[in-house]
């Protein structure tokens, strides 16, 4: 999709709803012991991934963080293998070795240590520039990562070496339990512009707004082979992980009412179309979940030495 085209409301809604249902299924079943380890859901932030990654081209690279299920699915990742990965099954995206935060499929990568992915993403963009591949790298980070020093090393080098990299900075206003006011001083936007990286800021849950703004920005990254940043002020509906939410329920309820990206986009569809999409996605998610559960667990095998 290019910004000059009118985005397909049906596809956007379908993607948003798919992520929503995936994450809800995950949280609903965690307490039943059907998933293991830990997880960080993307509930409430769906429009960010869907909007930005609607412009993804085949050769492009996505580097995601600990809250990466939405990024993975919006980049075209498979529901069944993601469920399987989170269940620790052999059929998972990484054979059960990675789990929620460590995914690799095609040109999609994620890692669970904040900040460290950003120089790696910078290096990837530099590699693509060396290879003249026309690929761009899209790297996701959150407000929590603004505390990591290596981010600023990456911003400096990305700008110095003019690499095709879009930083997608999702400010969900809370890092685990610490509100952004207690952890981030000064301006988020100026953190990027100080390094000579143009940055735009959006405070919206509307996938269309994000889609248009990021489309223009990505075109700039592609055409100029230089970094850009988009700062998306957003809101996390779920807990940091599974049951560790310290915010007031009324606060979350208010945001759900005013800032639900799924509801905002659903208003653009007539009821029958919306129900058709929801039925289809519910079936896909349900089938993927059931199939993943039927997959066997991996075994530790001898690793090739030579």
């Amino acid at each position: 999709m290019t910004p000059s085209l009118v985005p397909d409301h049906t596809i956007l809604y379908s993607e948003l709803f798919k992520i929503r249902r995936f994450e809800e299924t995950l949280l609903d079943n965690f307490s039943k012991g059907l998933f293991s380890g830990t997880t960080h859901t993307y509930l409430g932030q769906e429009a960010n991934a869907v909007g930005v990654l609607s412009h993804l081209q085949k050769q492009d690279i996505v580097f995601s963080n600990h809250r990466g299920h939405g990024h993975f699915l919006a980049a075209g990742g498979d529901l069944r293998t993601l469920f399987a990965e989170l269940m620790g099954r052999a059929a998972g995206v990484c054979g059960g070795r990675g789990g929620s935060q460590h995914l690799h499929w095609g040109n999609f990568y994620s890692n669970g240590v904040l900040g460290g992915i950003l120089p790696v993403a910078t290096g990837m963009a530099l590699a693509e520039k060396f290879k003249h591949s026309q690929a761009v790298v899209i790297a996701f980070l959150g407000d929590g990562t603004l505390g990591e020093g290596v981010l600023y090393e990456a911003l400096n080098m990305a700008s110095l070496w003019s690499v095709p990299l879009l930083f997608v900075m999702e400010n969900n206003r809370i890092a685990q339990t610490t509100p952004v006011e207690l952890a981030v001083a000064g301006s988020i936007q100026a953190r990027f512009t100080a390094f000579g990286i143009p940055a735009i800021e959006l405070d919206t849950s509307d996938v269309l707004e994000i889609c248009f703004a990021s489309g223009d920005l990505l075109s700039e990254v592609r055409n100029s082979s230089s970094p850009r940043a988009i700062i998306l002020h957003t809101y996390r509906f779920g807990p940091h992980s599974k049951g560790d939410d310290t915010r007031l329920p009324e606060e979350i309820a208010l945001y759900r009412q005013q800032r639900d990206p799924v509801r905002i986009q659903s208003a653009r569809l007539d009821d029958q179309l919306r129900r058709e999409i929801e039925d289809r996605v519910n079936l896909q998610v349900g089938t993927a979940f059931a199939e993943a559960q039927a997959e066997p667990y991996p075994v530790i095998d001898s690793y090739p030495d030579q």
Partner: protein
Amino acid sequence: MITVLESLNTALHRAFAFDERVILLGEDVLDPYGGAFKVTRGLSSKYPERVLTTPISEAGIVGVAAGLALRGMRPVVEIMFGDFLTLSADQLINHAAKFRWMYNDQVRVPLVVRTPMGARRGYGPTHSQTLEKLFLGVPGLRILSPAALGDPGELLFQVIIKSEDPVLFVENKLLYLLPLDENTTLQEFTIQNWQVGDHPLPQGLSSPLSLFPPAPGYSLSLRGAPQPMLTIAAYGYMAELARQASRKLAYEHEIFTELVVPTQLAPFQIDAILESARTTGRLLVVEEGSLTSGWGAEVLARTAESPAIKLHHARRLAARDLPLPASAPLENALLPGVDEIVRAVLSMVIK
């Protein structure tokens, strides 16, 4: 006769000429300076597009290099002083060394991080350390450390060109100006060459990375000497000091030793050390890093676990567990030298 430094510099030039995916990142690597220790001299003049002088960002540049490696390049990073590897630790441990395994073997990370380590130059507490022990046992990270034996440059060339996994290549500073005097050494010592991979890993000790290309090792005994009664294991510059000590022990004390010098520290493949210790029954492990939880500790633990080996005596010799001082006499007092090795051996063989 060429020096270790020239051998490494030539190897980098060869690697650049051999494969255009090879690129270099490091601080102050541009000519005419050519790197703090001059190992990278000449590269930026010859390959200006492929040599990136970097900001002082040891974490960032190792991360950038990991990203380059994931996307098909063959980056070489120079960390100006090995002490600064602490800044790169997250990138090495949680990123570069993990990617292949945690992504279920779907990716390769052909990354070489070169760095000078070591003391005896009076650089003080933060520019003199031997810190590779902190990275020993990190799954997915191979650690190589050449001595002035064989061809260190060839080893570097091979890993840059052929390794599919991250390699930490540790160069002791005092090795740089030593000549590669294999011929001189050969006159006095019999040198047996071996390489890791000569012996398959025992069951259950499979490695999460490729050990290709294999790293060489060397076993040295004085020519014409009787059967050795003690094994000394040492790597890097400490192998040079151990060689001098073994000569002294022979000529001044008539005590004959076999010196085993690996160039691969991790993953642990110490068959040559074990084999020598099995025949001598005495093992002294010498290292420049501080004593506690060092390379020698792991070597002795593995020796103790080998049912075929009955040791009369085992001992570690290492730097004291203190920060390294700048003052030369103080620094010397903290580090094992030739005399300390001689004394340690004497204490182990004389009842």
